């Protein structure tokens, strides 16, 4: 066999892939080539379009424009079944395994010979053993998946992919939950698969791994292709530059009266020390002074949301103290945190922020019942006039007080949530991805409000994955990686995206 042609013939060719969701142009004219027997790393910031591209390939999203060729043949992958039939197998970050079934049953799930015929158990068991032998591991085919380790489950996913005779395997953050030893094991398997002529698309935030395993690197940014380069031509710095390489636009409001952290930040404020919760949050300590706007950033899954949920009492912390203005707070549930003056604007407004089935007025009043209804009886006049005041002040677009929260745009939903906490007179305001899913105009208004809150001497903590936003807004930047704070940039405005990414990817 001619090794060189084998190495250069792409088995997968994607051309001009375009995909839009309401309000978001997720993929713009993306090209991608995968050669048999290579590992192609797919890189990009959060929201760059990697997941969408994978989902298009897996048949979970239909594409708006573009073509997909496998071995030069045009194929359509409008459903997961078609994708599988075309020889593509996707291993998502959340495994698609049934915990209560055996390894063998999971490997052959969806491939039973026909609805009514008897399953050839012995044959399947033998084939499962063969697959594991090919990968080079020993797992009992009759063990239940729920009894396996995460690494073993990963292997089962791979076996499942091989069982369908997949020639293209996509792995989305496969090492996210693995220990260093297990990562080594996985790499051995991947190299083995590569030598068998299988094309592998490898998605990861861990640049170290990319250098170890990838042959070529494709980078996406804002839904567009930045470029594809062989790993040998890249350095860590050039990779990060490709990922972020976006110019800062003047989309962030200036702080009023030229305030800087040195002059305006008062004493006191929020101090957290040694917060811990399992592997998600490990020994996190930091301080946010009054009048300061601090950004907490890092990649998705770095433990940022988990950290602020501990401060807010939404999850139980294993250890750690929370102090406000030098006073230790006993926060064990959100109710305690709210009473102490801490509030959280959750990232997921639809599921964690608002009761969508109820009116905007009710949503506004929900945490403020102690004010509007001190004896249980709601002072409707007071509640309505307070609500109307915020609608005017924050320029919320609502049809009426009785409009359902579900029928508002993202920006207006965020404003309703903000209004309720402002009414609560919170001292510590934590924004988790405050501008996600919000249009540009509303974004600017939210930024203005955040600045104003800081200027009023409140403690403002913002989680954001959007580096321009972090740099544009924060007085100080904290970076997290795998549950730890891995760095602090004292002057937020002077930070560079490369600097932050460097701390975030390790």
């Amino acid at each position, binding site marked *: 066999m001619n090794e060189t042609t084998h190495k250069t013939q792409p088995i997968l060719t994607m051309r001009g892939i375009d995909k839009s969701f309401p309000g978001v142009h997720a993929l713009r004219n993306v090209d991608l080539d995968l050669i048999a027997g290579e590992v192609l790393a797919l890189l990009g910031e959060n929201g760059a379009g990697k997941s969408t591209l994978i989902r298009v390939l897996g048949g979970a999203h239909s594409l708006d424009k573009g073509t997909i060729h496998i071995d030069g043949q045009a194929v359509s992958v409008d459903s997961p079944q078609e994708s599988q039939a075309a020889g593509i197998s996707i291993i998502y970050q959340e495994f698609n395994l049934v915990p209560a079934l055996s390894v063998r049953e999971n490997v052959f799930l969806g491939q039973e010979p026909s609805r009514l015929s008897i399953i050839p158990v012995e044959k399947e068991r033998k084939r499962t053993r063969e697959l594991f032998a090919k990968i080079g591991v020993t797992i009992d085919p009759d063990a239940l998946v729920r009894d396996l380790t995460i690494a073993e489950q990963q292997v089962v996913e791979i076996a499942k992919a091989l069982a369908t005779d997949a020639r293209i395997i996509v792995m989305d953050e496969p090492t996210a939950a693995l220990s260093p030893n297990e990562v080594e094991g996985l790499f051995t398997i991947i190299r083995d698969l590569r030598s068998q002529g299988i094309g592998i698309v490898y998605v990861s935030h861990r640049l170290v791994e990319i250098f170890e395993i990838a042959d070529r690197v494709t980078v996406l940014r804002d839904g567009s292709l930045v470029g594809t380069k062989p790993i040998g031509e890249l350095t860590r710095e050039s990779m990060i530059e490709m990922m972020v390489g976006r110019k800062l636009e003047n989309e962030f409001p200036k702080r009023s009266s030229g305030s800087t952290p040195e002059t305006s930040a008062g004493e006191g404020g929020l101090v957290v020390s040694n917060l811990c919760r399992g592997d998600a949050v490990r020994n996190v300590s930091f301080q946010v002074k009054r009048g300061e706007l601090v950004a907490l950033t890092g990649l998705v899954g770095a433990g940022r949301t988990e950290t602020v949920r501990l401060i807010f009492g939404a999850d139980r912390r294993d250890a750690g103290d929370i102090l406000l203005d030098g006073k230790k707070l006993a926060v064990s549930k959100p109710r305690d945190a*709210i009473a102490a003056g801490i509030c959280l604007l959750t990232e997921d407004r639809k599921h964690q922020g608002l009761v969508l089935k*109820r009116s905007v007025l009710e949503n506004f009043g929900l*945490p403020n019942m102690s004010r509007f209804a001190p004896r249980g009886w709601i002072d409707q006049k007071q509640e309505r006039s307070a609500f109307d005041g915020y609608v005017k002040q924050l320029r919320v677009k609502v049809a009426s007080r009785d409009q359902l929260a579900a029928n508002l745009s993202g920006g207006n939903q965020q404003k309703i949530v903000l209004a309720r906490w402002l009414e609560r007179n919170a001292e510590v305001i934590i924004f988790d991805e405050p501008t996600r899913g919000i249009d540009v105009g509303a974004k600017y208004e939210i930024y203005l409000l955040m600045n104003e809150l800081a200027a009023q001497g409140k403690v403002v903590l913002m989680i954001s994955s959007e580096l321009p936003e972090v740099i544009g807004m924060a007085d100080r930047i904290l970076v997290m990686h795998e549950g730890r704070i891995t760095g602090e940039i004292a002057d937020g405005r002077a930070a560079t995206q490369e600097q932050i990414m460097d701390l975030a990817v390790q």
Partner: protein
Amino acid sequence: MKKFLLNNGSVVVLVLLCVYYSIVTIGRQHPVTPAAGEEVAQAILADTKAPSVLIVTRDTDQDREFARAVRAVIEAGGGTIVDSVHGIAIDAGRAIRTAGEAGKQVDAIATHQPSSEWGPLKTERLEESRNEFRSLRGVKLYKPVSYVWPSFLTRPNLVNVVNQNADIAIIAIGMTLVIITAGIDLSVGSLVAVAGVVTAVTIQKWAGGADAGAAGMIGCSLIGIGVCLLCGVFNGVMVTYFRVPAFVVTLGIMMVARGVALIIAVQYQSSLLGGGTKGTPEAVKVEAIAWPWLGNGSILGVPNPILLMLVLYILAHLVMTRTSFGRYVYAVGGNPEAARLSGVPVFAVLISVYALCGAMAGLAGVIDASRFEGGRPIAGDLYELKVIAAVVVGGTSLAGGEGRIFGTLIGAMIIAVIENGLNMAGVASYEQKIVFGLLILVAVLLDRLKARD
């Protein structure tokens, strides 16, 4: 128009049902009311000056009211009442004969349609009497004018429909709250029995039985209701702290509570008979004279259970729309996580809701025990299904977060009207089950259509 129908579908359904049953039950109405009695008396006075009148009716409270009205008008018009007979056909015949043999003049016999069918009052027998006795020669029979009217749409029937279902409607208040929190409570039917039996036994044992005073009876009723409230608290604790599905917990309590009610009744019965069980008693009798007042009495002509029901509905409506508790209930049902992160004490709200539902079932049990003058261990059988049906038909979403208290009242009335109408139209109970089942399916379907809009 479509929106109006979807939002007020239950009201429309209720009105349509009433119209339908009114049409189906149209027939001759033979009134036996005080007004009808006055009308008869006026007719007699118009024909005869200073008449001597014999009144003949059945022996019921209603008939006596009728007779009293006749007597009052006749006597006011200068006439005399020869005799007022309340009984059966033989009594009427005997009265006529007695009057005739005594030579008492009788100008008119005042009666109503049902009694006018009796033998001695039939045209030919009256003719015989006229010929036999001189004093009866001029006697004429008077009865109220019959008219055509739907028997469904009469005051006694409508009051009866509502009264019979007041207990279900009261429990449905609690169930509405539970279902708004996306839960369910299957234990209410059995709790009705527990409350009735516990209240009855405590009145008999501790409050003095036949001599029980008002305070004692109220206290014992509160014990009965309190036991049910505690069962509700248990349900709530299991649902919240132990995360057991509401369906399962309340199914368990449903069986336990029924068993407890039966055991208490049997034990009490055997203790009365000095040991040795004699089967399951129908009810634990309450001997206090004032006891049936709650279930059978009325104020200004409105039965007490209806008054109680209306008061509770108004209260519940205010609680759900005007208090922080009401807001919390809706929020917890609509999105428990968002509610928790907004500082709503989710567990406390859920436990209160189940406790309230239990207490409402307990109150219904007390009403039932008062109505039947004793705590019945088999009371409230299958009530849970009727109550849930009422809530669902009333437009409360099983998915939680939505629902109106007065919607449930309409739902309860729909169930009541259908049952009553079907009975009047002579539909057998088996067919009624089919109609009920279909009704619930249609209600849920409407709910889905609304959700899709």
